[in-house]
């Protein structure tokens, strides 16, 4: 054979069987599909990065104008005024006060409801109530805002004549009612997970239902219950519409629920509704406030995660 014909007619048979060729194509198709799915999953990471990115980006611009020290120590928050002050504490105090009122209601009521549902209620009752709790969780918060402003506040004003039309008490109470189903649901799940053998041990000692529920089941489920509380706290701190509608727009440092005050979330809403030139200090201030909010809720979420890991009972 001379070289020319070797090159024109290869002596090695390079064709692969049709079946094998199909396999290679299928393989490539599989890999592509997997890649696409992975990209979809990465969207979660991308979202987090975007959120942190945007908040940091605008906040960094903000902190070029406002010193971090002022931000945390100034007692006034008036970014839109002539004499602008940029102390975040008034907003934080508003958030904390409304949340405290909400949790003062939601934690006891939610826990008691959970204990009742888990240890006292009949199977039938539970089957009916649990879905209802889920339905409650789905009620939009703007509706609760209406309730706070136009139903509860007038009632409270009859009890406390000095109560302003916008106040943290009404918003806090309604927020609390809103959070009860969350806490009740999660805490109840935690209690149901306690094995029956532990309850039998308690009943066998002659304990009543109440004694068993409080002395044995609740301590056994404590990590899940605390996780429920943390979930509630996170929810309260991040809540927007109820406080925007009913708590007020004045950023003041106050821990008195009978006053009208703005929370971090209400402030952001207020500013966003107005006309704000993109890039102005007022525009950037909402991102700084949002960053504080995000850090607060993240801290609570991490705390909840750690508590659950540390105290999780392995049955």
């Amino acid at each position, binding site marked *: 054979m001379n070289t020319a014909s070797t090159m024109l007619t290869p002596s090695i048979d390079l064709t692969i069987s049709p079946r094998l060729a199909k396999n290679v194509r299928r393989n490539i198709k599989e890999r592509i599909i997997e890649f696409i799915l992975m990209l979809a999953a990465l969207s979660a990471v991308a979202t987090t990065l975007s959120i942190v990115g945007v908040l940091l980006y605008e906040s960094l611009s903000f902190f070029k104008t406002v010193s971090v020290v002022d931000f945390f120590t100034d007692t006034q928050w008036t970014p839109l005024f002539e004499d602008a002050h940029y102390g975040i504490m008034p907003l934080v105090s508003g958030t904390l006060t409304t949340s405290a009122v909400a949790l003062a209601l939601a934690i006891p009521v939610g826990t008691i409801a959970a204990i009742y549902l888990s240890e006292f209620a*009949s*199977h039938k009752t539970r089957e009916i109530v649990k879905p209802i709790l889920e339905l409650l969780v789905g009620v939009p918060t703007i509706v609760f805002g209406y309730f706070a402003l136009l139903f509860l506040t007038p009632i409270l004003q009859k009890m406390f004549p000095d109560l302003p039309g916008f106040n943290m008490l009404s918003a806090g109470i309604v927020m609390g009612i809103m959070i009860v189903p969350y806490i009740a649901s999660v805490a109840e799940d935690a209690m149901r997970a306690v094995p029956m*053998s*532990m*309850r*039998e*041990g*308690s*009943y*066998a*000692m*002659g*304990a*009543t239902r109440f*004694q068993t529920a409080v*002395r*044995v089941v609740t*301590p*056994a489920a404590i990590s899940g219950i605390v996780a429920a509380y943390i979930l509630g706290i996170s929810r309260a701190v991040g809540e927007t519409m109820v406080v925007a509608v009913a708590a007020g727009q004045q950023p003041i440092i106050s821990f008195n629920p009978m006053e009208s005050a703005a929370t971090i979330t209400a402030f952001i809403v207020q500013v966003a509704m107005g006309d704000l030139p993109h890039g102005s200090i007022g525009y950037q201030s909402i991102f700084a406030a949002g960053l504080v909010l995000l850090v607060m809720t993240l801290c609570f979420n991490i705390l909840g995660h750690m508590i659950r890991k540390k105290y999780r*009972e392995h049955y």
Partner: protein
Amino acid sequence: MINPTTPIKAESRDLNFFYNGGNHALKSVNMPLYENKITALIGPSGCGKSTFLRCFNRMHDLYPGNKYQGQIVMHPDNTNILEHGVDPIEVRMRISMVFQKPNPFPKSIYENVAYGLRVRGESNKRQLDDKVEEALKGAALWNEVKDRLQDLAFNLSGGQQQRLCIARALATDPEIMLFDEPTSALDPIATANIEELMSELKQKLTILVVTHNMQQAARVSDYTAYMYLGELMEYDDTNTIFTRPSRKETEDYITGKFG
């Protein structure tokens, strides 16, 4: 042979039991529990021995739909503990139970043992201390834990946890103690410890023990009852059951031909 003058602490009379859904789990069981003696219940899986045991402290009341028929009478007061008017809590304060798998509470060793007392309203520290010590000694656990009573009960080994559960059950001075396969989850040494414990405990109270381990029944008990499919097949003192059983069914089970 059974000594005709041995006092009876409790006895079941024509006891029938139906699980929720209709399963007729116990059929006309008549059986005495002699005072200060250990009575063992043996039989293949599903024969009703645990069901029978749990009738004594009304455990079945915890689950809706179960039905008792017949009587379990306690002496000397002649109370039928299965009667509607009798509160199961009252029954459980007189009859305590040790379970198959140790189930200590998520509390300290001290608080576990003190639980029954606290539930009865006892809060005097000195009283509690004394009773806890007494119970732990009675369960042969005192020396191992006396320096760490505040430790979590979960940190104990399996055998220790079971002895803790026994101490817990002891602390309230029950008249009868029920043991539901107490050593099936334990290693041989822990098992031997608990069997020895039971022999000591019977001096103070009456014991009914369910076991799927025949050798254990032979080692530990004074009287043995062989049950099958919800019926009491044979009942006699342990020696007789294991050497000269009256019924073929019993003999088949004992010798391993069956079950």
